[in-house]
Structure formats: C-alpha cells, structure tokens
C-alpha cells in the first residue's frame, strides 16, 4: 500500500496532501446513485411507458372490456369444482411427479368461459376452460389452465399483445375494429387458423363433454432422469353432443353451470388426461403450431369431478392457476407464451385480490 502511494504520487508519503476538489467526487457519487436509480426505474417499467411489461399487458386486457373489479381479468365467469385425480403407471413412467403414483390425488378446479365479462351468457362464449390444482401428499402442487381451443392463436408474446390490442373496442362502434383484427389474421397464419376453428368447430352442449388442451409445452422427467417434451389434454368420457346456434340463443344465462350441476346430481363427471409426446423437430416452443396427429399418446390418468359450487365464496376463487406452478418431474418449456401467461396471471391476481380486500368489487 505504501509503495503504491509513494510511486503514484511521486512524493514522500508523509508530505501533506494537496487539497482535493470535493465537487468532482460528489458528482461521481451522484452519477453512481443516478445510474442505479434509473436502472431500477427502467426495469420496473416506470420509464418508457410504451415498453411491453406485465402491467401494460394487463392494462391492455382490461381495456378490451368493461371493468369488473374483484374478478379475473380473463375467463372472468366460471364455477369452482372439486374431485380427484388417479394417475396411471404409464404416466409415472414418463414423470417422477408424485401425482402419478399417489392414489386419488385431491383436485380443486374451476370451469369457466373465455372473455372478461363475469355476467355474460354461458352459451355465447366460444372458448371454454378448465383450470386445476392437484396437491399430492408430499405437499407439491400442479396447477394448470387449459382451454377448449386446440392451439394458441399467436406464436409469441409480442403477437399476443398485438392481438389483445386489436381487440380493444373502437369508441365509435363499441366493437373491435374489424380492419385491425383482419391485419392480425393476415400477419399471423395461426390467428387465421384460429379464426377458422372458431367459425367451424362444433360447439359442445356442456363443460362435461368438452376437450381441454394445455396447448403450451412442458417437460416431463422420469425417475431415471429421462426427459420428454409433452402437451396434455383432458378428453371427456361424456359423449360429445353439438349445440347449434338456435340452442345457444335459447340457453339460460348460467346454462353451463346449471347443466353441470344437473349432471353431477346423476354421478361424477370424468375426463382422461392424455399426453402427446413431441418428436424431433416438433414446434416445442410455439403453442400456435399443433403437432402432427401421429405423435405418441400416453394416458396419464383420470380426472373425476364430483362437486360444483359458485365461484363467489368458492374455494377456487382466490387461487391463481399459474401454469408454471409445477411439481418435481414436470417443468415448463421455453415457450414464451407460458412465461407471459404466468406473469400476467400474477398481476391479474394481485389486482383482483386488492380490489376484493378493499371492498371495491361489485356485488357478485
């Protein structure tokens, strides 16, 4: 140290130091502090408001419809369900997750309709959804949110935001601008294909006879450490029945809940859970591209639902069905939509829980 000081200053170590200018040093300190504060503010999304963040995405979703404080920002209308899951040995061979080994894993879930209106007519919603929470006896959780569409409409988070923006109603007409929607369909082939699905796929008569698809890809790792990329689906045991436009028009507001309740009165409602295994070259990180039909299918288990309760006051209502809450043996893929869903669900959950806590929600 003394050597360093001696040679650098070129003077006797004991000689009085020349006075230093504190202003330059203070400026340097201010610069360091300023850089830290600016970096923090930028990462928080407080600077550059046009940057796509979780908050701007959630704001965009909110702008597509009327505000309904206290409700989920998407899939706002639904009902809580409960039952159990029984895994198969084939499932256990694919993933080390305890849910495939344990007898009768308790399940809490939510059946819902797409869209942000918590008071909308059940039968008018093109998309139907199933969210589940499976808690195994080792305390680990598997949460999943599945939809009745067979593939996602857009390939990336940027496209997802663009599509959501295009869905914001035009103030003049109160409806999304058809030109903007057409532009999305023109830009993304999957959005066009999704539109075709929405137009042509038959509507089912019940939550119970609907297939729900995980759509995003996940990694299953078994006890030997072998990993496969999979997508999962819930295939109903109840036979499919189509519902035509006239029947939908005549259906009551809470048609799906009422119908499901009537089914449960006669007995449990079941689905088989199937995994589709990706082959080399399959689009494992793009949920807008379905995998070929001939991919290996493995039955993972059977879901049995035995009870339904309204979401108001229901056990599922204050649960965030974050698709990345996963047990050992199951992991998320690099699918960007999966990360975006996880992030936006969290923000949506925070907003509605604050609204519920502060009493801002409307009477449910």
């Amino acid at each position: 140290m003394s050597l360093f000081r001696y040679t650098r200053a070129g003077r006797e170590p004991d000689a009085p130091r020349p006075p230093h200018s504190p202003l330059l040093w203070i400026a340097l300190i201010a610069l360091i502090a300023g850089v830290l504060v600016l970096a923090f503010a930028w990462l928080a999304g407080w600077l550059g408001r046009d940057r796509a963040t979780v908050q701007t995405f959630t704001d965009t979703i909110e702008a597509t419809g009327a505000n309904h404080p206290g409700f989920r920002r998407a899939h706002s209308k639904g009902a809580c369900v409960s039952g159990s899951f029984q895994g198969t040995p084939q499932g256990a061979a694919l993933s080390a997750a305890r849910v495939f080994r344990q007898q009768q894993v308790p399940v809490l879930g939510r059946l819902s309709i797409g869209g942000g209106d918590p008071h909308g007519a059940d039968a008018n919603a093109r998309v139907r959804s199933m969210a589940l929470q499976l808690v195994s006896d080792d305390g680990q959780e598997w949460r999943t949110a599945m939809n009745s569409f067979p593939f996602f409409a857009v390939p990336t988070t940027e496209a997802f935001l663009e599509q959501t923006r295009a869905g914001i109603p035009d103030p003049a007409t109160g409806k999304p601008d058809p030109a903007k929607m057409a532009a999305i369909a023109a830009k993304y082939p999957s959005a066009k294909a999704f539109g075709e699905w929405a137009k042509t796929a038959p509507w089912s008569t019940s939550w119970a006879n609907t297939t729900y698809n995980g759509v995003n890809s996940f990694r299953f790792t078994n006890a030997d450490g072998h990993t496969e990329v999979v997508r999962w689906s819930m295939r109903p045991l109840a036979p499919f029945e189509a519902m035509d436009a006239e029947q939908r028009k005549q259906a009551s507001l809470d048609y799906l809940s009422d119908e499901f309740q009537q089914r449960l009165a006669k007995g449990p409602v079941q689905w088989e859970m199937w995994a589709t295994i990706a082959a080399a070259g399959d689009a494992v990180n793009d949920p807008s591209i379905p995998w070929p039909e001939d991919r290996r299918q493995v039955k993972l288990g059977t879901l049995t639902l035995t009870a339904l309760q309204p979401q108001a006051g229901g056990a599922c209502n204050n649960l965030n069905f974050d698709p990345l809450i996963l047990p050992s043996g199951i992991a998320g893929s690099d699918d960007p939509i999966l990360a975006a869903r996880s992030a936006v669900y969290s923000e949506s959950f925070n907003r509605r829980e604050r609204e519920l806590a502060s009493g801002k929600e409307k009477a449910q």
Partner: protein
Amino acid sequence: MSRDAGHFNLTARVLHWLMAVLILTMLFVGVTMVASLHWRPMLVDLHRPLGIAILLLALVRLFNRLRHRPPPLPADLPAWQAAAAHASHWVLYGLMLAMPLVGWAMLSAGGYPIQMWKGVLLPPILPHDVALYAALRSAHSLLAYVLFATVVLHLSAALFHLWVRRDGVFQAMAKGSPSASE
C-alpha cells in the same frame, strides 16, 4: 473477542459485502420479475431461495452485531449525519429481516406453494386470506422501494466518506486494522 476500535470484525465485513451483493441483486431481480413478460419464471425461482438465504444471513449478522460493537463514527462528523447513519443502519437491519418474512407470509396468504427449489417447500406461516395477501403484497413492494432508496443513500454516504471526507469510515468496513488479530 478482540474489540477493535477502528474496524468492523472479519465476520461483519464478510457478511456486509456478501449481503450487499445479494440484496442489490435481489432488489433488481424483484423489480424485474414483476414487470417482465419473459424473465419472471427464471427470476421467481431465484428470488425465493435468495430471500430465505438473506433472512438466515441477516440473523447471523444481527447476532454478530449485538456481540461486537461497531467502531465509532469520527468525532467531527456533524450530528445530523451521525443520526442519519444510525437511522439508516436500523432501517437496513429491519428490512433485511422483514423483507423475506413479508415475502414468505405473502405467498402463504396468497395460497401459493413456497418452493425453495424443486421438491423443497417451506410451510405456510399464515392462512390463505385475501385481505392479508393484498396488504402483504403491497407492503412487499413498498418496503422494497424503501430498502432500495436506503441502500442507494447508504452507498452514496459510504462513497462520500471514502472520496470527500476521507475519514476512514469506509475503510472500517473495507479492510481490517493492520494490527488487529482477528
């Protein structure tokens, strides 16, 4: 137990610089993961175990701090600066302990599993409750901003001692006394 009047003991110095890196990392990880549409899954997996690590280190540090008096501030330091130093140190200790506990409590009240890493979960420390979650989630953000502001002020003050006052306060944490037997 050597009591060195001019320098913090080795345990204090190691913990200080280790935690300085961890806490600053944690603040940036936290603020990024709640805003990013892409990095959340990776960062949230880092955030929880890092938070619990900071909680454990803070307990060790508090124990060491109570057993070893820190070196006194220079006698010529203006009273308001000395008061600010003491107050900021209390805020830093308080938040080092409170932030991880609020985070843990918040996840408990939100009905979330509190995963350290795959297969290792901490038990909930509060019941699943909307009002508790809402309050704790807001508190976690607010306290993070207070902690970040305090850390920036603390760093600025430390550099002021190093470069402007040149009074040995920075060196008391940066290195040991040449004569001290640790």
